[in-house]
């Protein structure tokens, strides 16, 4: 289990990052065990109990449908993890492949990176808006759209990093040993990209939360009945004075989680290969 040990060693002396890591573990646990933890069905409507203040049995109060905010918050954790991981997977797989292949096969890269340039010229949020209107509101589409938005930056980053690695002596050495393209790319280059990719993934995960919340706010994100923190904020935002708890709890959850993910990403970044540090945007 050297992987876990080396992962944990990144957090030595970073108390705040450890707190962040613990919080993320709590979120992950809530995401997995949501049905067991949530006292109510997050979709159950109860007009009689609408806009109840926090207390028993509604820990975080209820929204204007009379749905239990605490249960929705717990299922929201699940949605946060799904959106985060989903966007990371889409962004890293599409963007990662484009970036890596473009850097390695120069001629192909000329074409592909030009396309990435065109996409990057589109403002990220506008691109997401147009795509979301084109597709319909759903969890999958939200993931795809956010993933595509970050795929372009990921492609850029991986392009740069692969280019650097391609110039490495050990790659020359592998070529001199007779290694073919596949072996050079996936055996020699890719493993060296894993840890910077993890860092990039952590930042995408964090930004995806904010991006998804922004889409929810604009009414172009997840379907409104889905229990997500962004939807909770967006649907109940008019109650900011009438029922303040409806904004404070989900807001705090988003901020805490994004902050934690950024802290963890930051800690990880400080321990990766210094050559790649500049490549990864993050915060």
């Amino acid at each position, binding site marked *: 289990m050297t992987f876990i040990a080396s992962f944990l060693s990144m957090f030595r002396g970073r108390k705040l990052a450890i707190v962040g890591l613990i919080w993320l573990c709590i979120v992950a646990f809530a995401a997995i065990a949501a049905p067991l933890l949530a006292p109510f069905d997050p979709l159950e409507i109860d007009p009689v109990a609408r806009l109840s203040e926090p207390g028993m049995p509604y820990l975080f109060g209820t929204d204007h449908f009379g749905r239990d905010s605490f249960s929705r918050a717990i299922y929201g954790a699940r949605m946060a993890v799904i959106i985060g991981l989903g966007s990371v997977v889409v962004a890293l797989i599409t963007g990662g492949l484009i970036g890596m292949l473009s850097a390695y096969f120069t001629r192909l890269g000329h074409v592909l990176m030009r396309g990435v340039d065109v996409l990057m010229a589109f403002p990220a949020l506008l691109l997401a808006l147009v795509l979301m209107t084109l597709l319909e509101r759903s969890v999958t589409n939200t993931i795809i759209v956010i993933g595509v938005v970050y795929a372009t930056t990921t492609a850029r980053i991986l392009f740069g990093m692969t280019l650097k690695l391609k110039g490495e002596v050990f790659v020359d*050495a592998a070529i001199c*040993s007779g*290694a*073919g393209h596949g072996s050079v790319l996936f*055996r020699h280059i890719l493993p060296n990209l894993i840890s910077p990719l993890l860092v990039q993934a952590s930042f995408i995960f964090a930004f995806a939360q904010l991006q998804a919340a922004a889409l929810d706010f604009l009414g172009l994100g997840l379907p409104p009945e889905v229990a997500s923190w962004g939807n909770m904020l967006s649907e109940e935002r008019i109650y900011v004075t009438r029922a303040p708890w409806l904004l404070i709890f989900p807001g705090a959850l988003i901020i805490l989680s994004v902050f934690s993910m950024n802290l963890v990403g930051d800690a990880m970044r400080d321990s990766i290969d210094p050559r790649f540090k500049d490549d990864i945007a993050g915060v």
Partner: protein
Amino acid sequence: MTSTPLLRVTDLHTHFQTGGGLFAKRSWLKAVNGISFEIRQGEVLSLVGESGCGKSTVGRTLTQLEPSTSGQALFNGADILKMNPAEFRPLRRDIQMIFQDPFASLNPRLSIEQTLTEPLFIHGLAASRAQAREQIAETLERVGMDPRVMQRHPHEFSGGQRQRIGIARVMILKPKLVIADEAVSALDVSIQAQVLNLIKKLQRDSGISMLFISHDLGVVRHISDRVAVMYRGQIVETGDKRQIFETPQHDYTKMLLSSIPRISERVA
């Protein structure tokens, strides 16, 4: 030592494009600008020169790490510069390269065993992991390393040890020609001596030919049979090492030799 040349390079040019784009005019850096030399079986030829003279590019061109612009390089009678990557691949076993930086030339993510197994499998020299492990152990011993280090990763070794591993990776394929590009420049003096001795011994024992690229005249004198002096992309003087060091002909060679700080002067 036989007299048939293993490698014969004729009028080799390697130019790099340095500018140019959609609208800009192209400009070229003529890193290697028409050089010719040959290496015989079992011979060590040194290519010596100052930084930027193009000596490293020669090595990289001969291993197809850079495309040549023109010229010919006959290896065992076949022109390796004209080969496409697929055709050249089997020949890579015969033409091996030792790199300068022992810290950069080993993939940090792979164990020593993985690094050394790969060339064996690529060239079909081992049928199983066990077979490979046997050969690796044997080679590691030849380069003066304990075979038990196989499982470790590069960061666990010092510079000298890594360079030995780099040499093992080359020797395990039993190549015919080794190109050593500044193979000992990055090492501390005391370690450099060990590695130089090792290279010399391996070369003698297996009778391979070697193109030894270096800027260090002392090292060159120590290891070579013949020396070619490069200056601005061209070879200005070639000769037997004794001739080059004791009766240099070209002004540039003379200047190089006279620039070297010498301990003996002070001692005397």
